[in-house]
């Protein structure tokens, strides 16, 4: 038995997405930048994917660029925008939140440590939602970019971009958002929230790994991270990953078209899962109960070590997650849980549903979870 409840880590490739990619792996081998017919056939597929993404995001096709994934998109958008703004003499300050993904936090930290930018990292409330007023107070005249994730990858909390975005726009401060977890699972309004830059990842929405989306509004100046052949408006060089891009377009379209139904289904499954988990003594929810992604359950389990509980679940066939993985493969302490003041002597586990999750999966997982917690607690909790 294997029950996969780690869809925030990655998702299975959708069969329809695979079918869309297949021709570009098997026969259509052209370089989309070539001018001949073989190239044009591939280029058509890339441009169609660009339109699929543009339609889903409500932006112009040329605002959409394809990258190697969410991490590259975050790096390119943040570094590129920060460098361009400083070169234009607009300032030197970056503002972000304490619960961003490492792809954002490590990037702004590098800009601060190595590139001389001033950095303000705004804390979040105990419910894992950033206080919009507090964030806006941290923004000064010399702020060149604010980066706030649309929804958190660990605790699923949805950030108030609808407040932050328009307020920043009035002050002419650009906003980037890592929407890797949010897209397809909650509403995103690029235009209404005045997002200048945005990052997506295909593999979080049943697309292939190794491809992502970087939306960068064309009126937001940017410098290149990758120099070369001048693909993607000249700011993201590199031969187009045709099959990956086609898969990304198909996955984005699938997510957008099925979102209403899928969100309702995921919420129902998650609520059922969470109800089962919270019925276990000493289990509590991490993060805001309502303002969170519909597939995300993140719970604190008293009297258990997280690494041990995660292992016990794995051995029992339930795949969940605790924090992020370090290079060796051990679980690293979570900066997100630290930021919301979650107690360190408890297990904190994330279980995330997805397109392939069934009611039976959820019910079995609750049962297994309860058994593992009980056995572990009876044996002292598995602490080191």
């Amino acid at each position, binding site marked *: 038995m294997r029950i996969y409840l780690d869809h925030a880590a990655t998702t299975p490739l959708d069969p329809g997405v695979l079918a869309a990619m297949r021709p570009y792996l098997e026969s259509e081998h052209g370089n989309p930048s070539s001018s001949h017919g073989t190239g044009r056939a591939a280029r058509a597929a890339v441009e169609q994917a660009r339109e699929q993404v543009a339609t889903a995001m409500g932006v112009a096709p040329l605002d959409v660029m394809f990258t190697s994934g969410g991490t590259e998109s975050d790096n390119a958008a943040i570094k590129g925008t920060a460098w361009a703004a400083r070169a234009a003499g607009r300032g030197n300050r970056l503002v972000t939140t304490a619960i961003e993904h490492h792809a954002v936090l490590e990037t702004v930290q590098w800009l601060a440590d190595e590139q001389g930018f001033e950095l303000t990292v705004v804390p979040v409330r105990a419910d894992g939602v950033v206080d919009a007023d507090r964030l806006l107070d941290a923004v000064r005249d010399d702020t060149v970019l604010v980066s706030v994730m649309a929804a958190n990858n660990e605790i699923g909390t949805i950030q108030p971009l609808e407040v932050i975005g328009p307020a920043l726009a009035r002050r002419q401060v650009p906003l980037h958002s890592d929407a890797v977890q949010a897209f397809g699972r909650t509403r995103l309004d690029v235009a209404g929230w005045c997002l200048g830059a945005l990052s997506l990842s295909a593999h979080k929405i049943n697309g292939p790994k190794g491809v992502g989306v970087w939306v960068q509004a064309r009126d937001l100046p940017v410098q290149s991270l990758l120099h070369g052949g001048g693909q993607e408006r000249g700011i993201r060089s590199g031969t187009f990953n045709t099959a990956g891009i086609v898969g990304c377009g198909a996955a984005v379209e699938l997510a957008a078209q099925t979102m209403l139904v899928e969100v309702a289904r995921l919420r129902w499954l998650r609520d059922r899962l969470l109800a089962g988990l919270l019925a276990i003594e000493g289990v509590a929810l991490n993060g805001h109960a309502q303002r969170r992604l519909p597939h995300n359950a993140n719970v604190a389990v008293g009297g258990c*070590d997280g*690494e*041990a509980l995660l*292992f*016990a679940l*794995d*051995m029992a066939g339930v795949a969940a997650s605790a924090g992020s993985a*370090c*290079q*060796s*493969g*051990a*679980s*690293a302490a979570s900066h997100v849980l630290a930021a919301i003041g979650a107690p360190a002597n408890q297990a904190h586990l994330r279980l995330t549903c997805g397109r392939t999750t069934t009611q039976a999966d959820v019910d079995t997982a609750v049962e297994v979870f309860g058994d593992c917690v009980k*056995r*572990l607690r009876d*044996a*002292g*909790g*598995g*602490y*080191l």
Partner: protein
Amino acid sequence: MVKVLVAMSGGVDSSMAAALLVEQGHDVTGVHLKMADTPSGLPGKGCCTLDDARDARRVADHVGIAFAVWDFAAAFAERVVEDFVSEYEAGRTPNPCVRCNERVKYAALLDRARALGFDALATGHHVRLRRDGDGTAHLWRAADADKDQTYVLYMAGQDQLAATLWPVGEYPKSSLRAMAAERGLLTAAKPDSSDICFIPDGDVAGFLRPRLGQRAGTFVGADGATLGDHDGAYRFTVGQRRGLGLSGRSEPLYVTAVDGRQVHVGSREQLRCSRLHATGVSWIAGQHPPSADTGLSAQVRYRGRALPCDIDVAGDVAQVRFPDEEPEGVAPGQAVVFYAGQECLGGGTISKSWSQSSAATA
């Protein structure tokens, strides 16, 4: 068939432990213990590098077992490394492998393995386990005498041994390498790890210097005369001859004792130890052998020989005498481990030693 958790360091011994357990038909899961926060991606020797974690993972893949990495860095730093530093600070010579087995592997790790429903914990230690008809477990020296590790496992009690497997102790190291090569394990030709995993270059003084700093003191001769200055007593271990910086003497000088900031030096003769005092003594069988028991021997360092001894035990302290051959350079802080022939009976921590020719040397 039992459900076994095998600790996989990424070396050939634990790799073969995993392979042998699978072949013996057990339900095996591998775990790599991350003992330190290694700087990202830097190649390195010794334990706990990314290379070791990867090697362990690939061996687990190869032999077809589930695998996990557990973060023991905080527990290891607190229970082994801090103890190591403070022992040196106190003028003793600790054995961190003993501490690790006592406080990490056969404590926290074994407890967690049991909590997770494992029947046994296995490691790649070179020791052998023998069980009596009545279930009493005995610890025996490894088939490969040069690789024997009973010295660092003397503290294991019946409770630990009841849930332990040591499959590689039955084989000579050379055979294990050949067996690993036959099985296509990528660790077959990997060099042996260093004695102290967190000091892969072996430079103990270099490891201690930034942690303990400059602590000027003096060298004191057997007659009480001050012979010179040093910048930190922790750099010196009983029995040490090199690096004292006391040249021009008629006979070579050895460290005979470390006492606060004073490092006592003397002739090789003064290194000889006729008796010693040990604390924290434990017995694998759960009770100490009768004092009159003959044929007992004691080993005072990891790579040493066991020498015939008499033992007087009172609670968890023991007085050990060496009636025949006397060991040299017995350093307080090291373990004294007791044997009856090939069987390891138990041991303790050396707190004091005496030589025939003088009062307490330490």
